[in-house]
């Protein structure tokens, strides 16, 4: 297969297994490109991409922008904070205004779940979802799986535990879809209050004992406690959370085997993981960031090749 089955990347839910493999194979080539002394290819020189961010982001936005520039696309950036959105403009109007300046692709982050899907039905441009509320964050899940594949050779058959706030996490949901699609075994682990009631319907097991979960897994993906999304108290104190669900060096070393530690960032050092874990050899956190650029280049390149 040499073409994606979709015209937009709205979520992992809409992808097929072959799409993920094609994205990974393409990312392999781009990873070689970004490790050259001249890290740029001219493929997308006639494509203009708008990065539309209705929610704060540093890493994802930088990563997308770098990916676009490495492909030679023209890039415009838009942050809702300094825009007419504050004056009452609707989402479709905002984006259509941007598109009338001849933009071919929109990378959007939005606080509302389904914002990307809504947009794809109303505007003529390829849409890439860079996070929509607590729904999906597909490029993060792709780069996570890609990093597992790079570290362990394959994703199929691997045991992956996602630890932390599953309820509010788009990273968790996209990761579950991506990992299941590739044939990995997935468990989630965290306080009962932060695990969605029907999560098992996705073919995922719930484990509330962190030590048991870690002893079972090959890879632990440690999510950040997103204080900004916790409208009510889901656990007594951060300190108590850390005691039950935080990973430190002592815990890692007491396990039966060496596991891989991942984190989508930004890290709350000392909360989900301690510094000595984050900076240890078992952690592939910075590889995830590097792979993020290659994965986003692959996604943008493959979607752009479908724009006629």
């Amino acid at each position, binding site marked *: 297969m*040499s*073409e994606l089955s979709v015209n937009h990347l709205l979520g992992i839910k809409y992808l097929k297994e072959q799409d993920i493999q094609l994205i990974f*194979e*393409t990312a*392999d*080539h781009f990873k*070689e*490109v970004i490790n*050259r*002394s*001249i890290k*740029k*290819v*001219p*493929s*997308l020189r*006639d494509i203009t991409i708008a990065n539309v961010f209705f929610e704060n982001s540093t890493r994802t936005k930088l990563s997308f922008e770098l990916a676009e520039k490495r*492909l030679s696309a023209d890039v415009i950036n838009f942050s809702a904070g300094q825009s007419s959105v504050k004056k009452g403009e609707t989402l479709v109007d905002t984006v259509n205004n941007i598109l009338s300046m001849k933009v071919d692709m929109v990378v959007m982050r939005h606080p509302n779940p389904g914002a990307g899907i809504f947009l794809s039905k109303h505007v003529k441009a390829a849409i890439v979802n860079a996070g929509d509320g607590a729904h999906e964050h597909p490029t993060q899940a792709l780069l996570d799986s890609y990093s597992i594949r790079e570290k362990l050779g394959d994703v199929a058959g691997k045991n992956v535990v996602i630890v932390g706030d599953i309820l509010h996490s788009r990273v968790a949901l996209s990761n579950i879809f991506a990992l299941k699609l590739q044939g990995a075994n997935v468990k989630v682990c965290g306080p009962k209050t932060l695990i969605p009631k029907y999560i098992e319907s996705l073919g995922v097991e719930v484990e509330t004992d962190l030590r048991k979960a870690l002893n079972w897994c090959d890879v632990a993906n440690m999510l950040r406690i997103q204080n900004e999304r916790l409208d009510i108290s889901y656990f007594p104190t951060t300190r108590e959370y850390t005691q039950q669900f935080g990973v430190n060096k002592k815990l890692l070393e007491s396990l039966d085997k060496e596991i891989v530690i991942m984190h989508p960032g930004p890290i709350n050092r000392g909360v989900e993981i301690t510094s000595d874990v984050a900076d240890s050899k078992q952690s592939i956190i910075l590889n995830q960031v590097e792979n993020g650029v290659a994965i986003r280049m692959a996604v943008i*390149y*493959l979607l*752009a*090749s*479908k*724009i*006629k």
Partner: protein
Amino acid sequence: MSQKVLLSSKEINIILHRLACQLLENHLDFKNTVLIGLQPRGIYLAQRLNDILKSDYGVKHIDLGFLDITFYRDDFRRGDKPLEANKTNINFLVEDKNVVLVDDVLYTGRSIRSALTAIQSFGRPLEIELLTLIDRRFSRHLPIQPNYRGRQVDAINNEKVKVMWKENDGEDTVYLINTTA
């Protein structure tokens, strides 16, 4: 569709040795020269020349690389079929080196144009030359000519030249295929 044999295995072998000798004449010990095979089908020719130069002519070391030009092509989003990338494998810098680009068939010259751009990502070469097994005359879209050619062919536009290699296709043969007849 009809096809005829342009070059047999024996003829290809003679040509490969002649091309190797011509390269030797200009580059002697290959100390400052690199061979770059273009993906996907120029890599077999580059590999063969590398092997012949080493085994039959005593060249000790040749820097051999494979270059994929997919991301540098000028027909992105213009064709019906999506472009498929291949692996680039160049483990050396081409800065101040003599670069010999190697491809199986020279037709419009557009691939070579892309390769000239692509190779810049690996440094600024001293000089770039072009070697092709088949040179399809009178069909160029760009002012590009080979420095070393195996065989010159006059083929019309609905004819296709297909180079087969033992390691990939099971035989060493060059066919001229008429797609209309």
